């Protein structure tokens, strides 16, 4: 075991943000376009297993085959499978700060059959439950950010 010496420990803080220009590519770009222009969620379907891919992409990772362009429009309604809420603000590397997002974070099964992670409008832990029905609440402005064109998922009646 190494003993800790008592000398002063010099530290060098470096805060260098790294800028990026990430591309969606054409398949995910299709989802972006439909979300931006029509507030719609679309994806493509695997020709082999017939499952919807998510996000849309040119291959099915499960069947390991090319997926092609069997595009499908999905409902923006779904069911909450799991949720959790944040108690402690966590560092968001894309923001560059601690973010105390006060919306619960949920895994949602869309009626089309794909899972996505998003925020829930309902903040009251007492009212949160797995199985609750939700629907996307779309941004009215500045769309073009894919799933972030959805503000959050609001609770809907059964």
């Amino acid at each position: 075991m190494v003993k800790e010496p008592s000398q002063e420990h010099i530290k060098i803080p470096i805060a260098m943000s790294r800028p990026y220009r990430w591309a969606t590519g054409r398949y995910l770009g299709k989802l972006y376009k439909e979300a931006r222009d029509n507030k719609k969620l679309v994806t493509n379907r695997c020709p082999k297993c017939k499952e919807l891919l998510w996000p849309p992409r040119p291959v099915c990772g499960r069947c390991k085959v090319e997926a092609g362009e069997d595009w499908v429009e999905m409902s923006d309604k779904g069911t909450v499978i799991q949720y959790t809420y944040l108690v402690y603000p966590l560092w968001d590397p894309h923001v560059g700060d601690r973010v105390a997002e006060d919306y619960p974070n949920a895994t949602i099964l869309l009626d089309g059959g794909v899972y996505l992670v998003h925020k829930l409008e309902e903040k009251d832990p007492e009212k949160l439950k797995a199985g609750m029905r939700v629907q996307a609440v779309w941004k009215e402005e500045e769309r073009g950010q894919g799933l972030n064109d959805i503000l959050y998922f609001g609770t809907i009646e059964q």
Partner: protein
Amino acid sequence: MANRVAIVGVGQTYHKSKRPDVSQPEMVNEAVRAALADAQLSMKDIESVFVGNMETFEGIYLPDHGLADEAGLFMKPGFKVATGGSSGGSAVVEGSNFVASGLFRTALVIGFEKQDAGDTTGAISAATTPVWGKGMARGALGEFAKQASTYMKQSGATEEHAAMVRLKADRGACRNPYAHLRLGLESVEEILKSGYLMWPLRLLDFCPQSSGACAVILAAEEEARKITNKPVWIADHITVHQEPFRAGTFGDPTGLETYSEDVAATKLYKRNGISNPRKDIDMAETYEPSNWQEMMLYEYYHFCEKNEGWKLIEKGITEIEGEFPVNPSGGVIATNPIGATPVIRVAECALQIRGDAGEHQVTRDVKTAVATALGGPNWTVMVLLRRFL
């Protein structure tokens, strides 16, 4: 045709949140020196070096290059692997492959993370990019919280069971001088009093952010027998990756998918004649970032039936003195220097097989042990170790 490979030396630093006293290369150097001392070798006996580390955690591009002057890479062949949390396990696998291949007689495998240099949750959240999942990431915490909530519902496990896992881990950690969190916890109630980080995960339910390093030295059979009279053989290893089709970052939050752990265990056991893991294997060190995860891993690795993981802890089966000890070192929930973590699992299994684990040596005579690693989205590495070939 392939050479048989043995672990002939292991070494680790003590693990803490912060190591302000040492630079990153100096910290890694401690583990390398410890492994060399354990093997009674010098650096010139080392023919190759394989490194596991996740660069985003420290914000260092090509971090292995920065170690070259002080951690033994200078003028040696080797490379770095980065497979998320399993990086250290992958480094052991590649080191083992290169020795087995006959390309090198010895290999030094290094895993390290100096998490005092950055923000771990931030680095894990950066596993998503803004084009898919911006602002939705909650580090590993969010994933494990969701898995815990599902597991609770599906299996009937309770928060008390999770607390019992935590208590077991702490008992092990307190007997392991290198462990990070050595809390001296005394009761389940004490754990249930700790606050929620992210429901249902409590502060004491989740692993710490540790800074530390671990090194193991591998040697081909002929060399190994010269170096030590207690070689620990790498009988087999397997790596399986899993794609998160159901929006998980680690596996599948819905529990509906086949897990990489399940595939890895099935194949590894089959080709090594293991039909009853809890009988044919003597102990395990797993990569369990939360106590909830440990109960799930019991199931994924076939140590018990589905939804019965909590029964193992309830019956004390996985305690140090138990029938099938798991994580006698205190495990990942006590110590998690990410890149080093899977290497520590392998090193701890080797110590148990040698009978050199000191105060946390398990009661059962360990002839066979399995060390596992977990990386995102759900990377599984399993290393099967044996006292006899």
